[in-house]
């Protein structure tokens, strides 16, 4: 049986695929952030390119639509001088009945080096990683409710830049935890980095079973959940949750779980407000909070490029060393 960690790391403990934060050693997460730190200067230069992945072909395989994640992956790849192919399968092959494996085999046959995969089913990137040719790396760009590891890494990277030491921090993740791959990956990343306290906050309908087993505390009211928090991560509430009888209305949700100026005034003075985007103003967050001086939401987007550059270059480093030995 291959364990996820074994699948992600090569024999020397280097990143081979990036499927989940779960089980990766702290040193590796720190090394991703350190690499992102050194690469973020690239994005500030006039010529925003380094030749790290020159000649490599990266395929953005998106089985689920996404603008932000796909764009930042694409920019990251281009700044590493790779060739990028965007394949949007949400509207093509699989609806015609081609199997996931056939899709992978076909694109693999075009001699590509990396798949960046977004898929609606939890575990799809694991499945792909198990079946691709040995030289190909797979980066998970979000699978079902399972994981969104690059988002989690850019979030902890943003926190580290502002707060430094995780061991003194209380982080509250607020909203639809049940359906959130971002929340799951953030929890693993924050835990691995030694965060003092991780909280999830939301109505019971949106908090999954046995969430405490992940090492978090659950709060079912926002005021309690925000008390003493150093970082607040707001999650997007999708409109379809109203239909599934998870919550009665946007109105009531906003009243109880929306992050407003009034609520923020009760929180710590130096609290950071984060959101993986896209934000729903007036649904989970008040506009003035999203745009306010405690918000780092746009920095998260910028950091997303550096983190993705770091992860892609590290996974490819595995690849090139494997080939020369």
């Amino acid at each position, binding site marked *: 049986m291959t364990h996820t960690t074994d699948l992600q790391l090569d024999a020397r403990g280097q990143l081979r695929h990036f499927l989940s934060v779960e089980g990766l050693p702290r040193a590796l997460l720190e090394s991703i952030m350190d690499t992102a730190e050194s690469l973020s200067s690239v994005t500030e230069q006039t010529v925003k390119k380094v030749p790290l992945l020159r000649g490599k072909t990266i395929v953005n395989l998106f089985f689920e639509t996404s603008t932000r994640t796909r764009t930042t992956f694409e920019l990251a790849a281009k700044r590493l001088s790779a060739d990028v192919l965007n394949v949007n399968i949400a509207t093509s092959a699989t609806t015609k009945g081609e199997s*996931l494996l056939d899709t992978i085999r076909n694109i693999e046959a075009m001699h590509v080096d990396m798949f960046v995969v977004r898929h609606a*089913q*939890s*575990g*799809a990137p694991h499945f792909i990683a198990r079946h691709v040719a040995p030289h190909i790396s797979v980066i998970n760009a979000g699978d*079902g409710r399972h994981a969104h590891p690059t988002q989690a890494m850019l979030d902890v990277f943003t926190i580290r830049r502002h707060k430094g030491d995780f061991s003194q921090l209380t982080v509250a993740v607020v909203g639809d935890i049940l359906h959130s791959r971002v929340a799951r990956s953030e929890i693993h990343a924050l835990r691995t980095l030694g965060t003092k306290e991780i909280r999830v906050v939301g109505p019971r309908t949106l908090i*999954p*079973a046995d969430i405490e*087993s*992940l090492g978090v505390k659950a709060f079912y009211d926002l005021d309690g959940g925000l008390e003493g928090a150093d970082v607040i991560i707001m999650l997007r509430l999708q409109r379809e949750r109203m239909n599934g009888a998870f919550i009665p209305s946007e109105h009531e949700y906003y009243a109880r779980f929306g992050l407003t100026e009034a609520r923020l005034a009760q929180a710590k003075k130096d609290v950071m407000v984060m959101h993986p985007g896209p934000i729903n103003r007036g649904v989970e967050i008040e506009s003035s909070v999203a745009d306010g001086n405690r918000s780092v939401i746009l920095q998260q987007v910028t950091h997303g490029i550096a983190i993705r550059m770091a992860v892609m270059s590290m996974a490819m480093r595995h690849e090139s060393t494997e080939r020369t030995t």
Partner: protein
Amino acid sequence: MSQRIHIRGGRVIDPSSQKDTHQDVFIADGRILALGKNPDGFEADLSIDAGGQIVCPGFIDLSARLREPGYEHKATIASESLAAAAGGVTTVCMPPDTYPIIDTPAVVRLIHDKAALAGKLRIQPIGALTRGLKGQDLSEMSFLKEAGCRAVSNAMSPVANTLVLRRALEYAASHDLLVIVRPEDKDLADQGCAHEGAISTRMGLRGVPYAAETVAVVQVLALIEHTGARVHFAQLSSARALRSISRAREKGLPVTADVAIHQLHLTDEAIQDFDANYHLRPPLRERSDLEALRNGVREGVITALCSDHQPHEPDAKLDAFPATEPGIASLQTLLPLTLALVEAGAMTLTQALAALTSGPADILGIKGVALTPGSVADLCVFDPEQRWTVDSDTWLSAGRNTPYWGQTLKGRVTHTLLGGARVFELNAR
């Protein structure tokens, strides 16, 4: 076909008569002629050396999907009959979710014909409880019974409308048909693919809560009190549902239960690598459920172990975990996994074999499943110590979807007789 057979030197275990003794078995005209001493003038056409082996009635499997008619790309009655015979199984109940669905006598006859053609296995088709398994109109249960069905079921399509369910139970009761219920509340199951708990939460898999099973059980139990229907709960997965059934039995309600063998060996920890071979419905649950279900067998609340055999073509398991089809191909692993329970001290050998023979026979109302003179000679001989590896040399099912592939298991059938005819002999291929 009708050979005179002498089975020598075996340990004869017959749960229905509480027999466990070393005896020879003599078979003629498809039936057991005598046990012990050679009857006067008996000359065997075939002699089977059962030294060091166990002789017992052929296994009766309450749930095995043979995929025919309709899903021959997965398996056929012919292919799975071979697998059953190699597993010591002489009778299987086939759930009605074939294509076409078993809701007309014609489909029942088709299956019987195919079974006769394969000639290695008795098949008990389970009739549909509602037409097309749609949960709206009653099936023609009386005609199905006339065609040979002993039981009706809605298989994996729970009847959502409680009024339809009540009437279906009443109607089945009036024709003295057993109703087999795989308890699952469809809404609560919510298209989940894993047990709702810490592991499904961590993996981001849609969970099937305990309540999906308990709500369905409690609902049916309440309706039984009204209707008097005989109900069999199939493939239990949870300690909680088992408790409700246990209480109902204490109250004297006519209910029975079985469990699929893999639920007594595996828990949801097995799914942590998204290995689709562990994608099951009902899902694998927790250690405490596994222990409770084992106790349920030992204490006689659960009176049958079934394979819940579900062979698939390879593609059915080649996808992201939630997108794969659930089920394990398990006819040939039923015996070794049952013996492993005995070795683990979870139950005695007699209890285990009863749950494969007389237990399911009683549930179905099949008489004469025994090793006594006059009984139909459906039996198997197995070597409880023989180790074998699950691989392409030993595996006969068309479906290779088993988490035990490549593993070495202990306990192997060497001979299977069906109505006195040899339908399987190890190394005879």
